[in-house]
């Protein structure tokens, strides 16, 4: 109900003087709401992230601005202040992306292994760029990712959780937070992102809601073993969740190896398996021959 409260309202930027009319509620982020709006002068559509938190809006704007060269990030138009009724608010006007977030996507149809791993690699490469800039993504979750219907690519739509390395993570979801799973601290480092990336993979592969309460990584791995995916992929995911042994870079390399070699599925008929079957059949034939000869031999005796 409250989400539709501002439909039809006109919001005017204090500094840039652009006028936007609020058309539709799109979703709720960490610190604010996102609406589909129309610029009343140009009739162009935008997504407006509105918040009463100046601090968080400014931080998110800076991140978006810094990485505008990456297609994954939404194009930004402007940041400005405004009034909503008597409330002092702050907003980022950005590209309106037509499509669904991954949570909705998954509900419509469970995703294939290849697609899950492909998306994970794209997200992983993006994370690596953030890490090179001493930043950690922090708040990875299905709701923060969208499939752009027009461009047919993945888009990340919420950067409110991006945290400088070494700082404490403030925005998190227990499911993707390694501290909630007791496999690490809530301090921002690249392994924090490594854990959340693998939890992202597990959520999509198991295709069901996972609860953290009373659960464990070992338990998740047991469940994962019932899914039709290759042992080397399962092993890699386990290493990713534990965050030991592998660096983020090494993990990403191995993930891409799996993609390049098409090693998603367990191979039922591997080379040695085929040999074994041939050997089995051959041995069986020998026995059959021996049996026939013996029988024939016996018959000949009588």
């Amino acid at each position: 109900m409250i989400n539709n409260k501002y439909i039809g309202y006109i919001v005017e930027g204090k500094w840039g003087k652009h006028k936007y009319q609020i058309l539709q509620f799109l979703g709720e982020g960490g610190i604010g709401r996102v609406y589909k709006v129309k610029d009343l002068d140009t009739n162009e559509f935008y997504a407006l992230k509105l918040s009463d938190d100046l601090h968080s809006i400014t931080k998110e704007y800076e991140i978006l601005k810094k990485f505008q060269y990456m297609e994954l990030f939404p194009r930004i138009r402007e940041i400005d202040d405004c009034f909503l009724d008597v409330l002092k608010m702050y907003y980022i006007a950005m590209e309106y992306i037509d499509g669904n977030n991954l949570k909705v996507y998954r509900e419509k149809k469970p995703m294939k292994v290849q697609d899950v791993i492909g998306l994970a690699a794209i997200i992983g490469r993006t994370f690596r760029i953030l890490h090179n800039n001493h930043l950690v993504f922090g708040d990875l979750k299905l709701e923060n990712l969208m499939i752009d219907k027009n461009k047919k690519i993945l888009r990340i739509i919420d950067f409110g959780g991006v945290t400088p390395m070494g700082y404490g993570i403030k925005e998190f979801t227990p499911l993707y937070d390694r501290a909630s799973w007791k496999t690490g601290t809530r301090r921002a480092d690249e392994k924090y992102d490594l854990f959340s990336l693998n939890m992202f993979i597990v959520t999509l592969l198991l295709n069901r809601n996972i609860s953290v309460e009373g659960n464990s990584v070992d338990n998740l791995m047991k469940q994962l073993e019932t899914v039709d995916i290759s042992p080397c992929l399962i092993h890699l995911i386990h290493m990713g969740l534990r965050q030991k042994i592998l660096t983020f870079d090494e993990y990403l390399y191995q993930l891409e190896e799996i993609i390049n070699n098409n090693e998603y599925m367990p191979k039922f008929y591997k080379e040695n398996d085929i040999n074994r079957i041939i050997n089995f059949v051959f041995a069986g034939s020998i026995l059959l021959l021996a049996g026939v000869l013996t029988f024939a031999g016996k018959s000949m005796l009588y």
Partner: protein
Amino acid sequence: MKSIEVKQIIVVTDGKSNMGGNPVTAAAEASKYNIVVNAIGIIGDREDEEHLNEIVQISKAGGGTWESTLVSNLGCTLLAVTQKTINKTIHTIVGNQLKEIIGGSVEDIPPEKRSKVIQYMEQLGEEAEIKCCILMDCSGSMSNKMSTARQSIIELINSLQARAGRSKVAVIAFPGERGEFVKIFQPFTEDIKEIKSRILELKAGGITPTAAAINKAVELIEGKDQDEIEQIIINSEPLLKKSMI
């Protein structure tokens, strides 16, 4: 640059104070020592509006924020309230600095140019030293909420630990044992293992002497003399005498 110190008391209670002085007065006194008093009201099935009213008053007098929450969400709430306090403290300090330098606030700077100030504030907040005293209601009505309440304190400690700045946490239980109003369950420590194992011993049973708890917390934070602070209890309005066991 010396880091900023943020002193905070968080009162966690599921009922109205019913013994030992006026917690609102105690909160007002605490704020004179530059200690922010936040209050969290644990709500259950029956909506006890009167108790929430006291929560609001305590936080107002203590210059802090208030929240009402189910005990299952207490961990999140302790965190949110702490973060709000840090942000507000930094905002005020930097706001005053800005007033001196540019004669205005951060809002007078064009939005695209604010990021340096915001980053500075974020760094100050991250590196701030936190002295946080949690006052946990251990009256009889909290018995069935105690185990979740303990976990939520550990949740808060996990998050505070991850910060770059130092955090010291203390826990005061009210009431204490054997008829005491309060018990310093865990004095200020940075030793996480110690506090985590101590927390598991928190038990419930007894009345709700909120004011005494606040006073004890101030004493702990400031290292002050008990008598000085007890004068406040004696001089404030007496409350309902009905015991809650």
